[in-house]
């Protein structure tokens, strides 16, 4: 892998992202780019599961929620159990618990396929949402926890942005290599021909659970950043809306390449923030706008925004000669 030359487009994108704090206001840095990187990181796990493993899981936000709640409970300086743990052990514990949650979701979900995977992970997500809402002793119910701030200096805009960027870049590089490594290739084999892989000696279920664990690490890291981003958590963070948002992000970005999750997240965050300004009458109609956008992308480019990009970039003489790509 290391022999492969660095993709010049990736280098340009990374340089632009690193230089962003020099030109952008704090709002753009944190609320737009930071949020897109966090949501992209969570959706990246779904890209791995769905795009490369053929398992559409709606459990990513739930795993992120487990990690976020863990950090909130252990470190909040506001109303709460007042444990005031240092950030590092809290984050480590959050990652461990998030992975545990991902493992449990994986255990339950790997025996199903197709729409049943969606249904069982959706059920888990909804159960977790209602649990967070109803549970007061541990999770403080509807109000959740406020005043969850990262340790200095990470709470300030530029450092926080770089923290998100570092986590997202690490996640991206990891997944980009993983899908080309034997593990990822086997995962794609499991997606297309599970029986053949099984006869070759692969343990289908264990391999899939491992993929859930990988996705769980990404979601947990995203969850930790998300609670720091919001400086708070409540059941709204893990409700049905955000759970579906992750799927929307992964699909509009494109499931065929890990970068799709981040492209989708950026499009989603931009629509979320600015659709209202472009269409003042649509202030109450955000879901209609994102839904229409989603439908258009799915209808006209099943491979999301990445697919559109590829079609635009393809040299003219190649147009229509898809057979050659095989």
């Amino acid at each position: 892998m290391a022999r492969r030359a660095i993709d010049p487009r990736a280098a340009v994108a990374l340089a632009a992202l690193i230089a962003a704090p020099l030109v952008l206001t704090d709002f753009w840095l944190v609320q737009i780019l930071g949020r897109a990187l966090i949501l992209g990181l969570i959706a990246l796990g779904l890209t791995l599961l769905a795009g490369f493993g053929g398992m559409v899981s709606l459990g990513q936000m739930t795993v992120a929620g487990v990690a976020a709640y863990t950090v909130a409970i252990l470190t909040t300086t506001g109303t709460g159990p007042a444990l005031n743990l240092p950030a590092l052990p809290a984050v480590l514990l959050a990652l461990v618990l998030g992975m545990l949650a991902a493992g449990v979701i994986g255990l339950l979900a790997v025996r199903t396929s197709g729409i049943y995977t969606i249904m069982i992970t959706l059920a888990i997500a909804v159960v977790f949402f209602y649990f967070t809402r109803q549970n007061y002793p541990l999770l403080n119910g509807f109000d959740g926890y406020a005043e969850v701030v990262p340790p200095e200096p990470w709470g300030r805009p530029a450092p926080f942005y770089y923290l998100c960027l570092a986590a997202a870049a690490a996640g991206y590089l990891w997944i980009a290599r993983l899908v080309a490594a034997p593990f990822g290739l086997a995962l794609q084999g499991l997606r297309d021909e599970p029986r053949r892989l099984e006869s070759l000696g692969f343990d289908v279920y264990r391999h899939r659970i491992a993929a859930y664990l990988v996705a769980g690490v990404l979601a947990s890291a995203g969850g930790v950043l998300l609670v720091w981003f919001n400086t708070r958590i409540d059941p709204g963070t893990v409700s049905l809306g955000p759970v579906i948002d992750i799927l929307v992000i992964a699909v509009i970005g494109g499931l065929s390449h890990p970068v799709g999750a981040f492209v989708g997240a950026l499009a989603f965050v931009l629509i979320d923030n600015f659709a209202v300004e472009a269409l003042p009458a649509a202030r109450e109609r955000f879901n209609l706008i994102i839904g229409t956008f989603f439908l258009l992308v799915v209808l006209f480019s099943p491979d999301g925004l990445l697919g559109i990009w590829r079609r635009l970039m393809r040299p003219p003489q190649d147009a229509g000669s898809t057979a050659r790509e095989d």
Partner: protein
Amino acid sequence: MTRTPAFGLSLAAALMGTTALAQDDPIRIGSIATLEGAFTVLGEEGMRGLELALEQAGHAAGGREIELISEASDATPDSAVQAARKLVENDGVDIVIGPLSGSEGIAIRDYSKTQPEVTFVNGASAAADTTLREPSENFFRFTTDGTQWMAGLGEYVIEEKGWTTVATVAEDYSFPYSQVMGFMLDFCEMGGTVPEKFWAPIGNKDYTSIVYSIPQDVDAIYVALGGSDAVNFLTQYQQAGGTKPMIGGSITVDQSVLSAEGRRRDYLVGTPTAGPIADNWDNPAWEAFQTAYREAYPDGLGSPSLFAHGYYVSTLAVLEGLNEVEGDLSDGQAAFREALATMTLETPTGEVTLDENRQAIADIFLTEVAMDEDGELYNEVIGVTEDVTQTLGMPREEFLALGPASRDNPSCP
């Protein structure tokens, strides 16, 4: 002095998204209301009240123009904070008016502590703890809270109606906790009992399990649900043949629910409630407000709801404060905040002053649902409790010792 530096400075300030320095720039006000989810109708009402107040002031105060930027939330604390961050950190507003819902208010109070440069004036959110515990220096509430709204209701129910055993049905978050507490403090002290409390999540659609669990031996049910939740519960309760008389939470038999079509109309007549407004209050200021509302919003409700009233009062306070300091928001808005904290505000429902936690002290109306000759439901005034404080007249220490309102507090089974 040339004009260029001043212009450059204000341009730079605008570009940086921070508070504009020049006195003749417009004042930027941001609003947050629930324009999504179960409380959409309530949020629209809030915006009507806010826009009416701005309209009446000619979109100007203290000699400066006012620019309004609105954001939507959905009653979850997260959504309110996200809206506030957009307003403060991107749009660079000077003042935020909102939010609407109880737990949103607590979240915005927490957020306001991180933005000392901006003044936050509550919209209509009414959880007691927002200002009662851990108040924020730059968060002002000119509306009364859910506990205050219940003033006089418990006593009335026992003495006039003779209902001594009541089950409660309410949404499971901070504002209904405040309402149930406000009702039960009086009610329990006078010998009433509440054997069973039911809590439903906001936006719940199916209330059948609650409807069939309501004990048969209660005299009445106390219902504190808002918007579509109230409509759903009442419809399902009636379809199941429920006949217990009802005691209404402040937003349950508010115009935002009374104006909704449905079979439940006859059932609601005679329902006692209490709150910050009374639809037929015989008072020139209230009638002027009612008329202005009806003229401005022919498609609105029959009479302004308490959300329109809440946002109207809050906006009035902001306008009045700006007039008093002649639009001067310099020095971290110190003069403006001083004006807010010390003003006696004339509102459509009487005078409002603030206590040391910047929480309103105002009159509360005891009302009963009645039907007019056109078959429209409205809240008829039974009595007015004057100058209700956040601690319901108790010494602050004693009131705080009762503990925060929750599912289990207070309790008198």
